[in-house]
Structure formats: C-alpha cells, structure tokens
C-alpha cells in the first residue's frame, strides 16, 4: 500500500445535515432505539454459544475465578505487492485473475473468517528510478473486485483500503455505501492517507498535500462521509405504489459542509446501507493513528507481532476508548500475521525457512540491501559477505513504499547481526526481513493464536498468505477446526453483516463522534 499511516482524532464537525427541498431540517437519526446498551466485555464473553462452550476445558478456561475465553477474529489479506508473496512456487497462481480472488475469499469464508482484506497501491513502485520488477505486481481496483466477490460469497466481510488523499468524499462515500448494499452489509473501509508527490503524479489533485495536512484531511473526509451516510433516514423510502409516495417527505437531509479541506452542499444519492456505515478500519501504529482508531474505527490493523509489544499496544489503545464513550468490544485489534503450518513443528520450521529463502531471491536480497543502504550495490555477490561500503542515508532508492524508522540505526543493526552470525548478504536479508508470525503444527499454531488473544495481545489476526491463491487452504482445513474445538472461534456465522461478525454493535449515529467533553485539541 502506498501508505497506511494513522490519522488523528477528528475535529468537531464543521458539517451539518438538514433542510433543503427534501428535508425540514431535522438532524439525521442517531443510534436506533432498538440498540441494547453497551455490553461490558465480560458480559459479551459469557455469551459464547453452548455448542462451543463445551470444549472450553481443552484450553483450561472455565475454572472458578478465570474469565471466559475471548473469541478470535480472523481476516484474510489478499497478498499485496511485496516479497511476502512467493511467485516462483510452481503452485503460485495469477495475482489478477478473478479466480484467484474467488479462491481465497471462498476459502476464508469456508473458514468462517470475519473479512477478506485488500490493500491499495496507486503507483507501481520504483527502485533506482525504474519500475521494481522482482515482486508480484499488478492489482485490481479494490471496490470493483470486492463488488464482484460479493456475488460469489455470502457472509464474509469485504474490506477495501482506499486513500483519502486522492478521492473525494461524495464519490467515495457512495461507492462504499453501494458495496454495503450490494453485499448485504459486509463492507469495510480501511482509511489510509498519502501525501507523496510520487503517487500524486497519477492524480488530478496531485502531490500537493503537506504531511501534517493529510491527517486533518482524512479526519474531515471520514466525518463528512458519515454525514453523507446519515443523510438518508433509514425509512426514507416508502415506495408506496398505492399512494404514489416514493420518498417519505423529510427523508433525505441536505448536507452542507464547509471545512478546511472540503466544501460541499447537496443531497447524497444513496439510501442508508444495511450496516448504516461500513466498518471503519485504521491501519498504523502512530499515536495519532491510535487516537483516531479509538475515536472512530471498528478494527485496527497493526504491525505488532510479538506478544509483549502486542499487549502494550492493546492496553494502550483500549485505554483510549472510554473518553469517546466507547466500550472495549467496539474496537477490535488485529495485527497482520503470517502462518506456516506442517504436520510437526520441526517440519513447519523447515518449511518456513524454505519460504523465507524463496521470498528473498538473490536479486531481491541485493535490492532490499540497496534500499537500506541507499546506494547501488548491484556489483555485490548475494552469497558473499556484507560489503564494507558506507550507506547513503540521504538517498531514497525506492519510491512508492513506506519507510519506517531510523535508517542509520537500521544499517548499524544489520551490520551487527551480519558480523555476529557470520551471514552472507542473502542470509542477512532473510534474517532481518522475515515476516513469519506463527510457525508450527496445526496444534501449535492454534494454541499460540489462542494464547495471544487470551493474553490481550490481540483480538485476532489478519492473515497474509505467502501463496496465491491457495495460501490459506492448510490453515482453514487444519487450524480453524482446532480453534473451534478450543471454543474460541465460531463454527457458523451467527449474523449476516460484518458488524455482527466483529461484534461491534450497530453503526453509531453522528453524535458518537464528538470530541470528549472538556478536551480541546
């Protein structure tokens, strides 16, 4: 994805909805009155279906004084364009043919996953000024392919990453609402921002945005989208053939918004969708991103993969919820994770090493080293030692990919590891860029996923397979049944919408997104 940086807590809404020829000026509906009061998480956890509760003893829960077991949430990430995806495997299929998307989405639905997730990339990456050619490249437009997938799946959520920098709220809000209608309430939007002129070169509104402005733009974009979604009353359409009333008078409010980034007025085209609002996903770990997620998101997609880091992140994010009037269950924390499963732990470890080797071809090893060093290292032997060449920290050799952290420190660490372990370039790159999270027998993987969730390091995981399209087959066939036996994962979908799968409760009305009382920015 071009970027997946956090966005801050939205400002107080400059927009209003009301008046106009279709509306007398009343506020759009808030939370439906049928909604139950917020459940405390402990209450929700007790509501484990009887069919799954019987197996609780396997996981050791259920003893007096122990809390009931949390339910695991799972999502499938169609691999993006980086070296996680192994294309050199003989079983690797097309990254663009629709059948690949159908295979992975249906596999995830067979495994009762919460949602299927697509990343975004709006410009092909470049390396040393040329299109990067070593990774899988080429992807569909996310919302269009998800609409097609809605036809061949029934329950699984459909999540698109869509940029707020290179879109306009009126158009994107109607596309997202449309996906929600056409999928019967299964749409989700991973809200990301981007500011770089490199990506902007493909867009009429170009790379003009300051880094700090992209956060305020995203927040205003989301708030305005919500105003648009809320502008049709849930019962706006009467379609009464006898009386000739298609719309209920006052059913559509006029939206008027004048903000820093957007000034719009008019009527939205699309009736309120089954979920009210699509589920909002926030990707990114920055402080601003956490605050934004706490205020507005239903899912946070994080990178924290270790147990300790995950626990700290989880506690920090959940701690921020009460000041927005939100309960812990209203935001699910789902780190990205990879899984390698084999018959035994030893075989899985061997398979994992082989996958890492395939992910880092000799050419990829040099390219990734060049990205860290910031200079041409094509003369180096990937099977030789790390060269004694100083990095050029001023140069960015890759464009279109997000860089995290301090590169000087990174270089120092790579050098240290290479020296300590006496590694070749390729071995070093494999060592330093390995992304595998869960490696083991089906029992080991199921146990560890459960442990992470029960330890409050996560509410579940977004699984990134290394193989298209069959990369989750083994997980679904062998690990999911064990999670179900442990009583921590659904055996059937109990709801029809993604909000129901995630246990988020109905979409909040506009009042839910005000700043907390007494706080100013």
């Amino acid at each position, binding site marked *: 994805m071009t970027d997946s940086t956090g966005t801050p807590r939205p400002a107080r809404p400059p927009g209003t909805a009301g008046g*106009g*020829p*279709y509306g007398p000026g009343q506020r759009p509906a808030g939370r439906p009155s049928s909604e139950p009061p917020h459940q405390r998480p402990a209450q929700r956890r007790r509501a484990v279906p009887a069919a799954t509760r019987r197996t609780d003893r396997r996981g050791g829960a259920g003893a007096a004084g122990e809390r009931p077991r949390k339910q695991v949430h799972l999502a499938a990430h169609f691999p993006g364009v980086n070296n996680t995806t192994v*294309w*050199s495997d003989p079983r690797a299929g097309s990254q663009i043919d*629709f059948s690949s998307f159908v295979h992975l989405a249906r596999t995830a639905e067979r495994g009762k996953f919460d949602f299927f997730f697509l990343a975004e990339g709006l*410009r*092909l990456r470049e390396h040393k000024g*040329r299109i990067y*050619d*070593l990774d899988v*490249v*080429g*992807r*569909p*437009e996310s*919302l*269009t*392919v998800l*609409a*097609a997938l*809605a*036809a*061949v799946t029934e329950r699984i959520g459909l999540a698109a990453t869509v940029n707020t920098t*290179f*879109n306009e709220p*009126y*158009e994107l809000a109607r*596309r997202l609402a*449309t*996906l929600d*209608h*056409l*999928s019967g309430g299964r749409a989700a939007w991973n809200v990301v921002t981007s500011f770089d002129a490199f990506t902007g*070169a*493909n867009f*009429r*509104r*170009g790379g003009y945005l300051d880094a700090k402005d992209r956060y305020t733009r995203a927040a205003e974009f989301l708030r305005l989208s919500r105003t648009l979604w809320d502008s049709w009353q849930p019962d706006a*359409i009467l*379609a009464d*053939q006898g009386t*000739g009333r*298609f*719309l*209920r*008078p006052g*059913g*559509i409010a006029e939206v008027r918004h004048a903000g820093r980034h*957007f*000034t*719009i*007025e*008019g*009527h939205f*085209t*699309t009736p309120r969708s089954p979920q009210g609002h699509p589920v909002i996903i926030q990707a990114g770990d920055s402080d601003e991103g956490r605050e934004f997620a706490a205020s507005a998101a239903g899912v946070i997609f994080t990178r924290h993969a270790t147990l300790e880091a995950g626990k700290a992140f989880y506690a920090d994010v959940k701690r921020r919820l009460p000041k927005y009037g939100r309960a812990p269950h209203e935001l699910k924390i789902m780190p990205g994770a990879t899984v390698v499963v084999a018959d035994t732990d030893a075989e899985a470890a061997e398979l994992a090493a082989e996958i890492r080797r395939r992910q880092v*071809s*000799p*050419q990829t090893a040099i390219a990734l080293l060049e990205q860290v060093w910031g200079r041409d290292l094509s003369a180096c032997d990937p099977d030789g030692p790390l060269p004694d060449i100083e990095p050029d920290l001023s140069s960015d050799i890759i464009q279109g990919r997000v860089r995290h952290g301090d590169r000087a420190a990174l270089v120092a660490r790579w050098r240290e590891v290479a020296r300590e372990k006496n590694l070749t370039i390729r071995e070093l790159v494999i060592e330093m860029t390995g992304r595998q999270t869960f490696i083991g027998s089906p029992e080991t993987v199921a146990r560890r996923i459960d442990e992470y969730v029960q330890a409050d390091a996560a509410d579940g995981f977004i699984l990134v397979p290394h193989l298209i399209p069959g990369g989750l087959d083994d997980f679904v066939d062998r690990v999911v049944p064990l999670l179900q036996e442990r009583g921590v994962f659904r055996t059937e979908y109990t709801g029809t919408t993604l909000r129901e799968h995630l246990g988020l409760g109905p979409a909040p009305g506009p009042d839910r997104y005000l700043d907390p009382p007494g706080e100013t920015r």
Partner: protein
Amino acid sequence: MTEPIHLAVALDGVGWHPAAWREECTRPREIFTAGYWARLVAEAERGLLDFVTFEDALGLQSTLPDGVDGRTDQVRGRLDAVLIAARVAPLTTRIGLIPTATTTHTEPFHVAMAIATLDHVSRGRAGWRVRVSPGRTHARHFGRRDFPRIERLPAPGDGPVARHIRELFDEAADAVEVARRLWDSWEDDAEIRDVATGRFIDRDKLHYIDFSGRWFSVKGPAITPRPPQGQPLVTALAHARIPYEFAARSADVVYVTPHTREEAAAVVRELREIPRDGDPLKIFADLVVFLGPDAAARKARLDDLDGAEFTSDAAVFTGTVEELADLLEDWRRAGIEGYRLRPGVIPHDLKAITRGLTAALRRRGLFRSAYEAPTLRGLLGLGRPVSRYARAVT
C-alpha cells in the same frame, strides 16, 4: 447475408417512465439490492442481447436540468453503476456490461482502473458509458469547481454554457485518452515470472503514459494489468455537434437519438463526416419503448399518474414488437447498426424485448440465435487491439 442488428437495453431503476414504479409488476423497493440487478441482467442475457448499460450520475434524479426538485412521487436514489456491473459480472457469462461513469468530477486514473477491473472480473465483457456532469448542483457535491447553473439543455448557440459544455467534453476526451493509454500501458506479455533472473515482470513492457493536459496529468503505468479485451468498449450518448465530435474522437460506440428515419440518416451522415482514427464508429439509436398491444394505453395511464405527458431526448415508441421490429429494420437501412432500448417499465417492457422482439427479429434473420463471441468487443465484431506501446521501439 444481411448484417444482424445489435441490441442492447439501458437499465435505470424500474424503467424510464417516471411513474413506472407505480405499475404492480415493478419492484421499486428492490432497486438498491443486488438480486434485483442480477435478475434483470440474467433476463437480458437470456435474450442474447449484446449488452446492458447502467445509468448513473453524481447526484439525485431530478426533473430540473440543474438542481433537486424535491419531488417525492418519483424514484430517487441510485447505487454506483460500476459496482452494480461488477456485482452481476460473475453471475453472467456472455452479455456485455456497460456502466455509466462520469469524467467531470472523478479521477481518470480511478475510473480507468475500475473499468479495467470490471473487464477482468467479467472476463472481457466490460464497457464504459462516458458521461459529463455540466451542472452547478453536482459541482457543489465536490466543491472544487465553480460551474454555471444550467437553465436548459441543449444549451443555446455559442453562449457561455455551450462553451462550458464544450470544455467538459474536451476534458472527457482527455479522460478517455488517459484510460486508453493506461489500458495499453502493460503489454500483454509483460508478466514473465522468470525465476532465473528473479524478475516477475519485464519492465521494458510496462510504459509510462506521461499524459499532460489542461485538467490533469497522469504519469502511469496502470496498477492493473492489461484488461482481457485490451481496450474495454468506450461508449457515449450524443445529441448534438459537440458530443458527436467527442464520440467520433474517443468512443467505439455512440448512442444517438433520432426521432425519424430521416433524422437517423442525417445523424449517421454527420457522424461519418467527422474524421476519426481506427475502426469505424458503431452507431446505435436510443429508443424508449412501451411494448404490447396495449402499449399506448399503458403509457397514457402512467402519464396520468405522473401528471405530465412523458417525452424524452430519444424517440418514444409505443406498439407491438412486430411494429418495433419494422422500425428497427427501417432505420437500419438509414445506417443505424444497433439499438439501445430503454424499457418504459421494467420488467414488462424488458421481457417484451428479450423474449418478443428478439424472436421477431430472429424470424427476419436479423438477430443471433446464440452468442458467437466470448467478449463484448467480439460480439460487436471488433478485434482485440494490440497495445499502442507494443508497436513502439522501446
């Protein structure tokens, strides 16, 4: 052998008469559900039609040329047409799917990738009905441009509104040019998966499009590999000189709105005189149709319900399918190659087309009895173009 007639239907809500939704056979509550559109397109495919189009606009329907009318007695509200087309694509196998997408307030890059993706998910059945959005009302949904209020269309003479509309079509032509370049920007054999060199693609077969125009610049290449058809079908509705020129320059298919055979001949003549590169423009005529022995009475009843006589930019036909077949055959001799029929009431008039009209034309040897090509371009007799960049020396 006589050239067969191409047949398409234009889908919009529960039909083109503003009171169509009052008919008992219609399902006005369902137009925001996937199942509704899936049934309509399945019906059209059952009739072996070339394609369906999906209407769309970046604002509510209105009886005014520019502005909301506040009426509650007509259908209001729409879903995004590209996504409807994508939603029905996996449920159909042969029929072309042509959603409307506006060029005026949208990003050409996104629209081009969405249509390319529709072509991938439909395996070569995608098209694009290009539309401009001239009014102030829709412009205010975006707040980026200050547009004049459109008092009436077509805009008179060479006034400021006519100049504004000419600019919008120039912008649309740029948007189509960007899309066409992006669709060609991956050569067909760009993906090589060469394990020996570690290369997934041959980057010499991916091309920057380097488009630079008055309204936008787009660098490229596409993020989506070349669509199955190479170039999805570009289509446009045109009523006057400016859109005729746009269609001749940018489209593969144009929909025109003659009201008589003479007008049909005149518009064909005018279009054929406009210089153009590549395959000849396919000329379709639009007709709003109410079909059956009681068609005129049905339309009159709906007119009463709506409180006004229904007229349209396109000719309005009422009569039997045999009478319509006569008309289509007649206009064909004036150079019209296909028809995009707008059913007055859906499903009634849609089924009359897919079951009655197609049979009538088939008896005359003028319509197919089976789909003869797997792609939309193929159905229209158009080949799969080679990427423009493949011809260039790289």
